[in-house]
């Protein structure tokens, strides 16, 4: 029973929302919006689970590993200060401490982590772009040609530019479309497996 009920819920809700796609009436629109809100509410109310998981792990680390205590403390401090400064709704306005902490801690760290990619893309190119096989050669060759467009080489650049435009609009576009169609079919097959209860590992068992 405990295992059957969730599977029926997946079946019914799945089929309802598949059918909904084909019905334009306002009753159907209502169901769609309600369903989306429903999922969103579950997502928000699940957040305490995440917070509990985070607090338990961080506190356990602090207790068990004296060396890690400082860092766990830093993390908990960051969490606590955001919760406290963000208590009032006005905190979301620019100029509040909550927003300042967002702008001067979160934003710069996120932007810097993002910018590490410039280094990683260079080292990935160095390690991976070796002409070991036809496949690897095509990968590196195309990347090479596309990157070459930034370098002024006189008449070679003009020819290269035409080649880049062709690569982007023909093989690149074809690869994207082929990939998307494949992904679409794979995703739909997964949907069907989930809705019919064939794939149920995610549901757990007793």
């Amino acid at each position, binding site marked *: 029973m405990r295992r059957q009920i969730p599977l029926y819920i997946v079946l019914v809700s799945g089929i309802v929302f598949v059918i909904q796609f084909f019905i334009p009436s306002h009753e159907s629109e209502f169901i769609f919006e309600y369903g989306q809100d429903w999922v969103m509410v579950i997502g928000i109310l699940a957040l305490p689970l995440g917070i509990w998981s985070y607090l338990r792990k961080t506190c356990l680390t602090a207790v068990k590993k004296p060396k890690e205590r400082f860092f766990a403390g830093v993390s908990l401090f960051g969490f606590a200060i955001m919760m406290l400064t963000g208590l009032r709704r006005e905190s979301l306005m620019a100029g509040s401490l909550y927003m300042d902490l967002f702008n001067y801690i979160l934003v710069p760290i996120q932007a810097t982590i993002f910018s590490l990619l*410039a280094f990683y893309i260079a080292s990935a190119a160095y390690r991976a772009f070796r002409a070991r096989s036809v496949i690897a050669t095509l990968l590196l060759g195309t990347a090479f040609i596309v990157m070459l467009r930034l370098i002024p080489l006189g008449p070679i650049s003009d020819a290269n*530019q035409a080649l880049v*435009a062709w690569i*982007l609009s023909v093989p690149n*576009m074809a690869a994207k479309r082929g990939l998307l169609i494949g992904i679409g079919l794979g995703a739909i097959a997964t949907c069907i497996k989930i809705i019919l209860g064939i794939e149920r590992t995610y549901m757990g068992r007793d």
Partner: protein
Amino acid sequence: MNFYEKMLNIDRRWIYLVLAIAVILPAVVSFYVPVNVTPEVRRVYDFIEDLEPGDKIYVGIDYDPASLAELHPMAYAILDQCFRKNLRPVVATLSQFGAGMAEQALADVASKYNKASGIDYCYLGYKPYPAITIMLMGVDFRVPFPQDYYGTPLDSLPLMRYVHNFSDLSGVIDLTSGNTADFWIIYGYGRYFMPLALGVTGVMAADYYPYLQSGQIFGLISGIKGAAEYEALTGYKGEGLKSIPYQTASHVIILAFIIISNIGYFASRRREK
């Protein structure tokens, strides 16, 4: 481990260091390097360059602040060219957060050339729902924009008095970071067949080359590189050209690394044999 194998397994921190130097130097000390101009950018430049003084052209500033770095330089370079040629740009924005940016760009360049709003240029401001607005501008600018951004009715503006729709303009240049590009192609060019060129972000470029081939757009400026090309053509030294030294340097470094890595790979393989 021989030399080539060592080279192949080089500590990646050397790569980071070389790249950092290549990027930091040009970013800290500004200088210019030549940039290779692509035909799709040159066509936009030539199109504007061939217009007669007094001609009117629509410039759409349809991007949001997130794409400012790539598209703002294009707006400056194009408006600079328009004012230098004594053309009269009609500017509007279909992006929710674009109104302020568009006004800033227009006011900056206009003041440089001492141009007056309503006579030498017209700023219509922002209207939501791009597809409809584009179609209605094709009927008459007065329908979506009864007044300009500053509240003056269009009929009172000397520039707009005899301008009704796209057929009274020489063409449309749309700078965009979103789906307004599609709307301009479908609802603008598709209905009214005015000459249309696009300025888009680097990642969007691949999606719009096919329109270039099919002739639905006559020119395409993409990303900061496209902006730099345009600046190189107009001689306007802006953010686009400033970015080229470090972009070129970083690309050269990465390409050099790829070449070195392959030399090392083939040399070490030959040794094995």
